[in-house]
Every structure is written in C-alpha cells, then in structure tokens.
C-alpha cells in the first residue's frame, strides 16, 4: 500500500445527499455521528461541500429532478471518490419502484461501491459498509 492511500483511508470525509427518500435513511446517516455510534472513531466526518468529500452517501430513490443534481455533485467531487448507497431505495427503488417520477436505481447513473440494504438500515450497518468500502482503497 502506498503512502497516499494509507492516509486516504485514515480520514475520509462524507457528503450526504438525499435523492428523494422518505428521510428514514437520512436520519440514520445523521445518527451515525452521534455519541452512541460516533463515526469519528474511523476518522470520518460529515461535510457540507462536494469539493471536500471523499465518499458520497446517497439515500433515496432517484427522482427525475434529483438525477441531474446527483450526477453534478458526483462530478464535482475530487478523485478518487467512492459512492455508498444507503437503504433499499437507491439499490432497487424500494416501495417507490414504479412511481412515475422515479428513474432509479442509482447505479444506472453513477458507479456505486457499496450498498447497504434495509429500510432503513441501522447506523451500525451504515458504518460497517463505510468501513468495508474503505478496505478496497
């Protein structure tokens, strides 16, 4: 392992974007930063700007309007980048699979490194997926 990827694994910053989910997953993503789960143990932080982010955390099925946004945000992120899809929504569309405004799943538009199944998954599962994704760096 090179020095650069060693450091990259030590402090990845997250960016969270909701592409139309019910909020269930979004609050579980936020719940990963609270004292009980505390992802800072792994050096991770949730940040507000795509330009600072290493990992994009996507929740929700992809709606027509959010599709362009998510692609743009993905393009704005610096290389190397990773995408983690949280919940059944970005993986398959969940209950919204046949809604007229949903164009998902996410991997039709951007490459996805890890999926977390569940509706919503527990914060532990989300952390597990993030750590697993980092192992691939």
């Amino acid at each position, binding site marked *: 392992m090179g020095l650069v990827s060693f450091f990259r694994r030590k402090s990845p910053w997250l960016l969270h974007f909701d592409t139309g989910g019910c*909020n269930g*997953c979004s*609050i579980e993503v936020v719940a990963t930063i609270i004292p009980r789960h505390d992802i800072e143990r792994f050096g991770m932080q949730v940040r507000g700007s795509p330009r600072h982010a290493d990992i994009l955390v996507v929740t929700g099925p992809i709606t027509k309007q*959010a599709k362009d946004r998510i692609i743009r945000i993905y393009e704005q992120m610096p290389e190397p980048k990773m995408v983690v899809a949280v919940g059944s929504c970005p993986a398959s569309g969940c209950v*919204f699979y046949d809604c007229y405004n949903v164009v998902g799943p996410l991997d039709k538009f951007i490459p996805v490194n890890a999926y977390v199944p569940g509706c919503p998954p527990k914060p532990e599962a989300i952390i597990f997926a993030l750590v697993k994704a980092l192992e691939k760096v």
Partner: protein
Amino acid sequence: MTFVVPFGPQHPALKEPEYFRFEVKGEEIIDLNVRLGYIHRGIERALQERSYLHNIYLAERICGICNVAHTTAYCQTIEQLANIEVPDRARFIRTILCELERIHSHLLWAGVAAHEIGFNTLFMFFWRDRELVLDLKEMISGNRQISASNTLGGVRRDVKPEYVPTMLRVLNKLEKETKYYIDVCTSDRTILARCMGVGVLTKEDAIKLCIVGPTTRASGVDVDIRRDDPYAAYDEISFKVIIEREGDVLAKVIVRLREILESIRIIRQALKALPRGPLRTKVAPKIEPNEALGRIEAPRGELLYYAISNGTDKPERIRVRPPTYANIPSFKPMFVGGTIAEIPIVMASIDPCFACTDRVTLVDSHTGKARVVSFDELRGRRK
C-alpha cells in the same frame, strides 16, 4: 440594488434537497422564493395503483420521521371508509406509538435547531436522548424508524406487560433530561441571543395563513387535533395543549420541548389504562363505494388524509395534505426583514419535512423552468 442568494438544493441547513432563492439588500432579506419538487416521487398516483393493504407500507414511507402518524391517519381513514371499529387495546397502542414518535421527532428537531445555531454540543445531547426513544420503538415494533405496526383494523404488535417497567424507567429519565433542556434553552445566553425575537410569526399571520402544529401554537393559536377532533385513545386521556405567545424561534423551541413532557404524561396514562382484548379486527379486502376524511396531529401539525373507494380492493383516489405543506407560506413573514445569518435557524424553526411535502410540485415563477411531464410519461412506468 438587490442581490440574489441561492440556497440549495444541496445545502447546509437541511438534510433534504430544496432550493430557496433569497433576494437581499445588504444584509437584509427582502424577498424569497421556494422551489420544491426535488424529491417528488408520485406517491399519490402510486397509492391508487396498489391495494389497501399494500398502501400501508407506501403511506409509511411518505415520511420516515413521522411514519406512525402517516399510517395512523391512513388506517383511520380507510377504517372509516369500511366502517370498521378498532379494538380498544389497538387504539391505546396507537396512541403510545404516536406519542413516542412525537418525542423522537421533537428531540430530532431540537438537535437540528441547536446545530443550526452552531451549538453542536447540545445537538449531541438531544440526539443521545433520542436514541432512548428509538430503543423503545424498537422494543415495541421491531424497528427503529419505520415501525410497520399499524394495520387496517388495529395494530400488529402488542405492548407486552414485560415492556412496561422498561418504558416507565426510560420515560422518567427522559422527563428529567427534558426539564434540564428547558432550563438550558431559557437561560443560556448563546441560545437566547440567536433565538429570541428572531423569525417572528405573529398570531394574525398564523391565523391568516392557516399555519398548523407547534409552529402556530408558538404564536398563541390554540389548535390541536388531538383535543379538537380526538382519534385513537386521546378522548380518554387528559393532557394540556401547549401554547406560547411570542411566535419567535425561542417560543417554537419551548413549545416543542414542553410538548415532550406532555407526551410523556400521555404515554404513562395510556400504559396504565391499557385495556385487555384483541389487537385487530378483520377487514375485507374490497371496500364499498364511499368517501372519508381522517386527520391527526402529527409531530409537525395537522395531517390530513382523504380517500374515495370504488368497490374494488384499490382506492379510487387518496389525497394527503402533510403539515409542512401548510406551513410553507409562513416562510415569507418570518424571513422578510431578517438577516442572512438567520436563514438556517428560521428555516429549521418550522421543522420542515420535504419528504412529506414533495408529492406536490411548486415551481418558482421567476427562475423555474417548469418541467412538463407528458401524460404518457405519467402512465409510462406502469407497464
């Protein structure tokens, strides 16, 4: 000269993507426009295409934070359509779940509000205690957020007698903590400086714009569906409707925190009075032509469901009016005249939940390119 500050869709104040366009003059906000619809999914249409039983799971996922409120309102409306009586025990369990959800939602909101004013320590405290409520929800329903415990004709899971001592213990702890938070919020200088007199919604405006829920109760308007049009077991339980007069952000904080105390009292009473009996009654899959309207007090305000049946196992039409939709007009009186620095906290103060609201698209008339969805496209994905 005015300057336009765009805000969103991926923005720091909310976890959900929405676009706001503020027109400012120096520091002062003089106008704003809201553009919603980033997470419009087309749920009302989908509700028409599924059976009544399937729809429970869809209604639940309109909003993950107030999912019990959505299913309670949905089930209640469909039960009215089909003329079903819900067993007493189920009514009490619904009340308990609704109130647990109110506590979790208010704590969540209080945490977000603390985060908006840069008080991250308090955010961590609120969210730490929220985990306790989620543990209770998990104990009763098997899931932290989406509980899936309401069903047509009753509930699917019981509050077992062995749960009661744990619940009472956690509620005692929560009560103590909440009282402490009320103390903190009414005395801490940082909070007072950021919240007092900011984002005021006057009583007249609140009545004129038909604002609902804690947002309007913080402006001194005395409405609460739990008392005005009792559902579940609220008619057999005594509780106070919390009202504050000032209408600023601080009042909105205090109303919500005091509502948590009230919810704790409601749950204690419901646990004590929990009647014995069956959990659910049978519901036939097909429902005769009829129409019904159900409303409940969700954590954010009045949630309204309207349904028409047509004799088959699918509804003819279901309309959902979530509370945030009713509260969006309040942005204008609260923002105009304020400063840019107030934007996040004032926006958070109505506890907006766009997952609920975005089944409707509003397009900004100044900048918005209204996307025209053709009729074929609307029907398209059904094949």
